């Protein structure tokens, strides 16, 4: 009797599993799966980063800026309305075409500005990198010299008179 009931509930669980497997596979978003809002992004606290981490962050952000130099809007115009949608799309296309000579002037100018800005940032980044390398080498040399001085002081022994 117990074994039969177990078998029955086992089959029911198996059936329900298939149902919910299908439902979770069909879920469109992580929020839907997790059943709650999920925070996706955290602002990076740049003050907490070490020098080399900042280096990587600067490179990554410069890459993003570079990707976004061209700020012209994407040309695809669509509408989700089934009946009047095509009419809206048609009208928008006409308006966009009419305005293009004016917007193009603005966007071209903005694009040129973006290009210069990214190039300027890249140049600053390279310069900064070189300065950093130079500082690091100087620090290493200073450490070495300090070590040599300490060695010399040790070699001279305790009887060496000190200059005031």
């Amino acid at each position, binding site marked *: 009797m117990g074994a039969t009931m177990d078998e029955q*509930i086992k089959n029911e669980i198996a059936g*329900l599993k298939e149902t919910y497997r299908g*439902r979770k596979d069909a879920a469109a978003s992580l929020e*839907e799966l997790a*059943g709650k809002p999920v925070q996706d992004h955290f602002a990076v*606290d740049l003050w907490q980063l*070490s020098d*080399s*981490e900042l280096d990587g962050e600067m490179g990554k952000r410069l890459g993003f800026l570079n990707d976004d130099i061209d700020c012209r809007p994407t040309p695809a115009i669509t509408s989700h309305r089934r009946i009047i949608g095509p009419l809206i799309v048609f009208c928008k296309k006409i308006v966009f075409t009419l305005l293009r000579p004016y917007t193009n002037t603005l966007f071209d100018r903005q694009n040129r500005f973006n290009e210069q800005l990214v190039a300027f940032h890249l140049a600053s980044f390279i310069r900064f990198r070189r300065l950093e390398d130079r500082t690091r080498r100087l620090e290493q040399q200073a450490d070495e010299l300090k*070590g040599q001085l300490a060695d010399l002081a040790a070699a001279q022994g305790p009887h060496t008179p000190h200059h005031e």
Partner: protein
Amino acid sequence: MNKIDPLSDFFFRDLGLKVRPSGADLARAVEAVAKKSGPQAAFNMLLRGEVVAGWRKPSLALYDHTLHLIGGGEKYGCTLAQALQDDFDVTLIAHQPVTTGDLMQWYDLDLSRCRVKIMPLGFFAGKSLGRIDPDLVSARTENPFLAVSRESGNYDFFVNNSMLEMVYPLANVSLFVCHFPERQKGAYFYVQHYRHLVYNSLYTATWIEKKWGISPRHHIYPPVDMEPAAGELPAKEKIILAVARFESGGSKQQLEMIAAFARLRAEAPQALGSWKLVLCGGSAAGNPYLDRIRAALAAQPTLPVQLQVNIPLSALKAWYGRAAIFWHFCGLGQSNPANVEHFGMSTVEAMQNGCLPIVFDGGGQREIVENGISGFRFASARELRAQTLRALADPGLRQRVGAAARERGAHFNRAVFAAKARGLFRELAGEYASGKPLAASEKPIASPGEPLAANGIGGE
């Protein structure tokens, strides 16, 4: 009257039942969970019910996005899989082709009860040479690891051994194994959603807390298994050994080792005598850092430095056996905590072979080498030279400290790792099968300002 069994108790605990409910009640209860917490929560409830009823052992997925590559982190995950395969139904999830046979051969493990599931990720095709590079994912892109999140929800336990914080865990029990918090909290950061966080060293734990604001609870040092069979240790020779990957960025500092060795020879030629430096490590083809090392050695042809790149395990074992002293510089002069050794498996390997370790005083090395007892730790190149000269001059010291190092190295072997891992997972599996509410991981670690229990195995 039907007696209330563990399964009914699990599904209908809140109802205070006196009789076993029917199948229709079950469907209603599960649907109520789905309505409140989504379809995944309902599915998870059914999954757990099967384990609570004792119909099967829990399933466990271990995910590693670089499982197809040989590495210390991957070895950690595979050794974990070996330790757990009798208690769990283990699946290893990878993105690029690899077989259990490959893994068994690379790490000398038995994974015969595990299976591998390959999940290709189209997002990375044609980018970064097809490499799974998490840095290509940002707030501006989709999250390609959502596919892994979805897959994680098909198992009772999900272990993320990948250090990939972009995988949201959907399994009932989830564990994030952190070898070091390399990335900042940023886009698609989900580590805080894992039920348990496992860390490989106290150094890593400190940085998890600093960078992510999460207090991890479970400490399992990596498994190191370079111990020679009893009585196999050969006589030590005048060799200073360094074993580390030839990282293209030079973080393991082999060039600095060559410079330090050259300087030692110049300053104390008699003490150095016939001592030589041997640099062993793996390298990818076309490594510019390795080219710089070769150039440095070509410029000093009389310097007794031997380069051993991508040598087989047997040859590496032989070097460990012969070398009297072991050097490890990783972390010296670094400002990025990720560039300091998070643990230091090669140091333990050397210690297990009775080498006297002289290592940089930072990161996980502090937890391995007890300064002055089982080796020496240096903070500067000057200290390194002084400690090395002391060790070169005193064979008794080398023997005494080498023996202590061997004893210390045994604390990190595979058996210790497996016992610790099994202990943790059996506890979690017992809690899971009981049907009782699952406890969250909350125990805080030592705060960064406190002295770390550097000599302890396990930080709990």
